[in-house]
């Protein structure tokens, strides 16, 4: 059965990930074609002669606005208007805390008449537990720290390891520890996975322990760190040279050969991964990570019975060389040397900032943020014909990287800078007739995006006041929000997990999270008890004290209740035509009628989207 399980996992991996390039996500490749087209559209706009009509841009609040609005002015691209307070309050809560603002929070913000109220709210949210939850979740998801093997065969980590890492990430975000130190902690994580704080991302890469060569683990580590901290997948060249494979995918990696990749992986060749227990049936694996201070080097000698997924490493014989900058180890602790070289690499800050930018804007200044083609990001050395530059605002990105570094790699400071800008606070509304696809790379409007599965669920419960009790296997107490859950399928609440699945939470192993709407997900959001019963204007198992039930019970008028539902669900008041449509649909059964109003607002495009 073991082989079948492995084979099954291989099939599963196949269509989400290229078996030749085991960790190159399919989504990134799909995006390549699209982003190249957008880049070209952007360049066409940028170079178009004689059409630079004067445009009105908002005032500049910081360096982001300087560059973003300068480029729009230079190229005659009209930005969208600034967000209204209603649009802003909803967006900032969703982005910083992962859910819509509560009824009270909306009212408090709208009632505030002080001049700096947006900046004040930003500071409040950045200091709130919601921010810690949302950004911890973001990092866990990026690092794919997930326990369990629903569809991933033998990929799993133990409960203690998962829980330690959960605390580690929460502390990193809460204390705003330096991002470079955080990266080095992940690179050098060592010790017994039952007690060490930060081994989980490495353990996640140690798959099929008994069938896989050590070199595969090293290769996986290299790809993990180039992807998450340098912004590009390198595992393509872990199986084959770039030549003959990557000419259409990456100018930078096309001439890179496998031997060069081994020089990177060689930094991990002194790392020992000892297995203590591997109880797959209980999903209970325990490893010990340690490092030798001598020996090492990357050779191709593997146990033929456990060759792992990559082709034979014929002729492999490599010593560590961080050839992105030419660094070699300065100490015997090679893994630490990788951490040092990587965090000293200018690309480290650039990629880090670009990830944060992409989180807020929906696309990176280099896009996709995990698909940097380093041969296409320097305007001074433009790529050959047919390949557009991949970077839309090079000066801005470099300045942001410098600011990031000078702030002691404070993620929170970078987040504050971004969300304080008027560029971030542009509306999503744009006259359709005037919109050009090339404008997207100018960030000329805020791109509306469907809520993630977790945002959708947490916004549903926040809007209706029906937050659940989410118990997690192996963790004490309980959680209230989906973005507090350690990973998919970790809650014992089957109904919630099922809804999150149909909304696209993925499994972080084979199924990448997707916020693309699906027919099945819409049906679930129409009719499942998890949604429909939360909309009811009376008490039930899901909503013993739903907001609607409380308002209905407090003797408010129809119009007052409807106003409240709008504020709690959509962070805005109804328009007069919306109010009259609703009043015209009034039924003899008031409770059912108000329930249908609540249901309809939760299905509305401006609930389902972050805009």
């Amino acid at each position, binding site marked *: 059965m073991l082989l079948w399980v492995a084979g099954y996992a291989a099939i599963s991996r196949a269509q989400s990930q290229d078996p030749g390039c085991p960790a190159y996500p399919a989504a990134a490749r799909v995006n390549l074609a699209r982003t190249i087209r957008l880049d070209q559209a952007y360049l066409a706009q940028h170079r178009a002669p004689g059409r630079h009509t004067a445009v009105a841009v908002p005032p500049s609040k910081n360096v982001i606005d300087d560059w973003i609005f300068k480029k729009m002015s230079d190229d005659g691209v009209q930005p969208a208007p600034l967000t209204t307070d209603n649009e802003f309050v909803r967006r900032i809560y969703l982005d910083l805390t992962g859910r819509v603002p509560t009824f009270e929070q909306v009212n408090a913000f709208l009632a505030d008449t002080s001049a700096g109220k947006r900046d004040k709210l930003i500071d409040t949210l950045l200091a709130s537990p919601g921010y810690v939850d949302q950004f911890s979740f973001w990092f866990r998801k990026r690092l794919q720290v997930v326990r369990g093997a629903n569809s991933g065969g033998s990929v799993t980590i133990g409960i203690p390891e998962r829980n330690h890492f959960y605390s580690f990430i929460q502390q990193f975000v809460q204390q705003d520890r330096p991002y470079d130190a955080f990266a080095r902690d992940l690179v050098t994580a060592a010790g017994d996975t039952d007690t060490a704080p930060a081994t989980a991302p490495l353990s996640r890469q140690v798959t099929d322990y008994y069938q896989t060569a050590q070199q595969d683990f090293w290769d996986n580590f290299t790809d993990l760190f180039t992807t998450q901290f340098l912004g590009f997948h390198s595992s393509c060249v872990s199986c084959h040279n770039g030549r003959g494979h990557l000419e259409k995918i990456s100018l930078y990696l096309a001439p890179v050969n496998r031997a060069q990749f081994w020089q990177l992986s060689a930094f991990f060749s002194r790392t020992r991964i000892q297995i203590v227990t591997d109880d797959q049936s209980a999903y209970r694996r325990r490893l010990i990570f340690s490092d030798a201070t001598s020996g090492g080097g990357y050779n191709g000698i593997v146990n033929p019975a456990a060759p792992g997924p990559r082709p034979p490493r014929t002729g492999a014989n490599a010593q560590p060389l961080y050839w992105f900058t030419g660094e070699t180890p300065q100490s015997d602790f090679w893994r630490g040397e990788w951490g040092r070289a990587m965090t000293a690499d200018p690309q480290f800050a650039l990629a880090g900032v670009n990830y944060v930018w*992409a989180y807020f804007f929906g696309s990176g200044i280099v896009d996709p943020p995990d698909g940097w083609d380093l041969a296409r990001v320097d305007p001074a050395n433009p790529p050959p014909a047919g390949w557009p530059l991949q970077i839309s605002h090079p000066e801005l990105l470099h300045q942001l990287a410098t600011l990031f570094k000078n702030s002691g790699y404070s993620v929170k400071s970078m987040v504050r800078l971004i969300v304080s800008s008027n560029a971030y606070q542009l509306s*999503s509304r744009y006259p359709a007739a005037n919109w050009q696809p090339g404008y997207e790379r100018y960030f000329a409007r805020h791109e509306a995006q469907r809520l993630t599965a977790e945002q959708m669920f947490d916004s549903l419960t926040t809007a209706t006041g029906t937050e659940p009790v989410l118990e997690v296997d192996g963790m004490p107490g309980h959680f209230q929000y989906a973005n507090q859950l350690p990973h998919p399928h970790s809650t014992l609440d089957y109904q919630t997990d099922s809804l999150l699945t149909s909304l696209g939470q993925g499994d972080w192993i084979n199924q990448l999270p997707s916020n693309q709407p699906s027919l099945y997900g819409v049906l679930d959001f129409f009719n499942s008890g998890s949604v429909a019963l939360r909309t009811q204007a009376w008490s039930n198992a899901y909503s013993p004290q739903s907001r609607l039930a409380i308002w209905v019970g407090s003797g408010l008028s129809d119009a007052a209740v409807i106003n409240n539902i709008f504020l709690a669900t959509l962070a805005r008041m109804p328009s007069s035509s919306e109010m009259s449509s609703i009043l015209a649909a009034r039924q003899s059964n008031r409770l059912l009628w108000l329930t249908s109003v609540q249901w309809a607002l939760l299905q509305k495009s401006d609930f389902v989207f972050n805009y």
Partner: protein
Amino acid sequence: MARDCCGKHRFTRRHFLFGSVGAASAALLRTPADAAVAGAGVTPRSTAKACIFINLAGGPSHLDTFDAKDGPWNPADADIRQYGNLYLSYRYFPMLSGMTSDLCILRSCTSWEAAHSRGQFYVQTAHTFNPAFAPVLPHIGAVAAFELGGKGPLPPYFSVAPTLGGEQTQGFLPGIDTPFTFNPNSSGLPNLKHDYYGPDSQNFFTSAYNLLQTLDAPLHTQPLNDSMAAYGAIVGQARSLVYNDVVGRVFQYTAADEARYGGTSFARAMIAARNAVSAGLGTVFVNVSHDGWDTHFNQFHANNQGNLYNLNNDLDRGLANLIADLKVSGHLDSTLIVALGEFGRTPGPLNSQGGRDHYPNVMSALMAGGGVRGGQAIGTTDATGANIVDPGWSRQRSIYLEDIASTIYSALGIDWTKTIQNTPMGRPYVYVPGSDAGSFGPIEEVFR
């Protein structure tokens, strides 16, 4: 707007399709009429309106399924019987053995691949795996949906009980061709309706939905971007499915049916497939995954739940009942049924662990219905199933997945040589690579 995750990128299909300012040729590719096409001018058979495609994931042993022959590897109870030039184990396939006049067995197939992942990609797309373009290449079911869909409320392309995370989707084709994926439960498809308000439930839904449409109309006519437009379209599609008895019945199975088909997940998938194609509500392709054929170990061992007795018996009951029911209802002639995996398994004696390993040189496939002439086997292999000794068809070579895909397209009335020139990838998409030059084509011998 929050970005989701690395690699998980804001990506809307419509935007992908229409998002290029530079390419004036980025036409709306929503229906075949939008496609700039080339073709070799072939005439499809058009013998079927729908296809049920059973993906035997894992790679079944041809010797222990459709290419049975006497040999020391057979268990004592294999009971191989002859029906014309067709041989089946009565122990494995007691029901199909009684309906061989409806079956066409292809024994001279060869796979290009020996690894599951690449082999499955071939089975699902009729294309070689290419890392650069894998995500944009559609499943053949999505191509069928693209060509023939939009004729009823049901999604044109179902994928029932799919291999987890392992199915190719619609690729570059439009969102309407996305596989409608579900796991068949005894209770039917949940959330096609609800019962929260007793007899008033449907009225409640209708009025609530109408209110939604009224309130959301401004964002439907002027969506904030293409993603929002796509969401609105899917909501409309979902609406046509709920409280629709005709649709609901497709996903409901009687206890008698379940018992007859075997009560397994595959059994329910077969019933759903039967219901979907016989409902005539627009479904043209049903993909059903039947997993577990990677029998490296103990393939006849009683303690192995995934042994070939159980695998074959499960396939036998589901498939035989499907064929029988479609025959009774009169839909068999218009429904092409195809079953195959990604490669065959090592010939002759079992390996040292009592199983068989991957073997691309020889594999078998099964076809029925949809204009197929039953009661025949095409191709002959040698005594141990190691080599093809007679391909048994006009091209006098192995049957490849390209030929099988061409056959499916031909039966469905689709020009298998077609090439879409104006793809969003900027390079042509050939339905069956090589068929435009005549290198591959339908196996005409399977048809009546």
